[in-house]
């Protein structure tokens, strides 16, 4: 429908919408997160739901303890290699449509604990991530911002065609391989269907001097 006409009709008290808008509106405003924290960032996640920041304003206060009832996984904290299989399993258990916010430096890349032998260097090695929030820990405002970003992303999605959401595409996978414990490391160390190391020019990196207090 023509945008102008729609606005005009709205002024006359006639509300029109499309199925797509209605559908996205519903998805966007009822993101139920999984009640699931991994480390320090989880405390900030809890703080976000509490009195001062009040995540409920964005329709996302219903933290569900079971992945079957949740739409959104907030990966809040360091994913250790011992925990990674359970995180992937929880993701697999969630019903579509499902989204992932990777909260904090650890969930993005390992963060301060990157050099740990038991630390997974980013959850996107195993599952697809919709929004990354940098910070260590990100402030509650940042988490709220990530929420709004995710809501915008959902709002803009076309229900048909190439860019359609994964759950409307019968060929797109909704479960991913769960890594196994190996004798030295996880097997496989990453899921090549989800993540391939981007080629970076390492020689250009590291120009910044470290050690600033």
């Amino acid at each position, binding site marked *: 429908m023509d945008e102008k006409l729609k606005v005009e009709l709205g002024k006359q008290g006639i509300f029109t919408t499309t199925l797509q808008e209605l559908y996205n509106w519903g998805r966007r405003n009822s993101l139920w997160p999984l*009640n*699931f*924290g*991994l*480390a*320090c960032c*989880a*405390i*900030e996640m*809890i*703080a976000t739901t*509490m*009195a*001062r920041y009040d995540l409920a304003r964005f329709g996302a206060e219903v933290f569900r*303890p*079971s*992945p*079957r009832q949740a739409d959104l996984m907030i990966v809040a*904290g*360091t994913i*250790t290699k*011992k*925990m990674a299989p*359970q995180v992937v*399993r*929880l993701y697999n*258990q969630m019903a579509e449509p499902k989204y992932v916010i990777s909260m904090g430096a*650890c969930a993005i890349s390992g963060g*301060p*604990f990157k*050099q*740990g*032998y*038991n*630390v997974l260097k980013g959850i996107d090695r195993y599952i697809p991530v919709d929004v990354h929030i940098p910070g*260590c*820990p990100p*402030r509650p405002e940042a988490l709220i911002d990530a929420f709004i970003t995710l809501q915008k992303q959902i709002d803009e999605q076309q229900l048909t065609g190439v860019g359609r959401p994964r759950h409307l595409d019968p060929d797109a996978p909704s479960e991913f391989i769960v890594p196994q414990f190996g004798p030295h490391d996880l097997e496989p160390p990453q899921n090549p269907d989800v993540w391939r190391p981007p080629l970076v020019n390492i020689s250009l990196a590291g120009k910044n001097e470290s*050690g600033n*207090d």
Partner: protein
Amino acid sequence: MSATTAATAHFTPKPSTDGGEGQLLEVSMGPQHPSTHGVFRMDVALDGERVVKLKPVFGYLHRNHEKIAETETYLGSMPYTDRLDYLCSITNNWAYALAVEKLAGIQVPERAEYLRVITGELTRLQNHTSVIGFLLQDMGASGTPLMYAFREREKVLDLFESLTGSRMMCNYMRFGGCRADMPAGWLQQAQKVVEAFPRFLDEFERLLSGNEILMARTQGVGVLSKELAVDAGITGPMLRGSGVNYDIRKVDKYGIYERFSFKVPLGEHGDVYDRYMVRLLEMRESVKILQQAMRDVPPGPIMDAKTKLRGFRPKAGEAYGRIESPKGELGFYLISDGSPNPYRYRVRPPSLVNLTVLEDMCLGQNVADIVVILGSIDFILGEVDR
């Protein structure tokens, strides 16, 4: 509330091995379970509702803090200590700073000692409120008590933020002093928060201490005897809840704690209720310490002038420094070989040691009590697994 909400619970009924007619049900609670506040798992065997076996499983947050610290400089490890017990970054800083100070024989200026006491006791306040909030949340009072607790916590976090620049990861102390002095008006602001705190405690107590449900769920539940507590190395409010008078602030008199008058609250029965009560009373004592410290804080430098933070190389040797963190005895054991990095860096985690008696406290209780007992231990997984 019961273990059936555990998302990853695997129910594998097994025939009872002890020849009884009942069947033992083995439940894996965690590592994703709303009551474990993180990634902790218990393998529980149940006879009906009764717990007959409980084995804690650790390591889901083992992020190699100790190994990384061996490759970092002494100063470089300070921000990592924030992330041990992430509710109480400042006391972690303190314990580490104390260990390094012992290792290198550093004296801390007067004003810095006062700042340490002030920030450390504020940390204790916000930790204990949050823990009580979490305990109540686990007990099923979802929402209100935790909301109240976090409302107060935010006030303390505001103070931390204006002093250190960060809400949670304060990275505030340095060996030889503190990183930043109080900004203008901070002390008055802090005084206001501290003066108002007892009122919040009164409110909390009115709401909770005499509450019938709370008493029914906590009194006589998760009893820890004095003897076991000492043998198992339990420290902190949990130990004192069992009636053992051992507070490192009094025993070691580290820093300037001997200048303040405060009492050490002790429990009698060693159950969940006593631990809850000890925490509440400890907060009142902390308020007293804070009032005295804020009254007396002297002017002066906040860093020892002789200590070089960069390129810091203590002589070869070792030191163990410990403090009374809100969770219990937090110790750092450092070995220097004269190089800029510690040769060995060890954290003595109160949370891990306090968790070891979980099975003893849970045996014979109902499965729903596990959650309450767990909440009364006050552990943070960043510190348990490091």
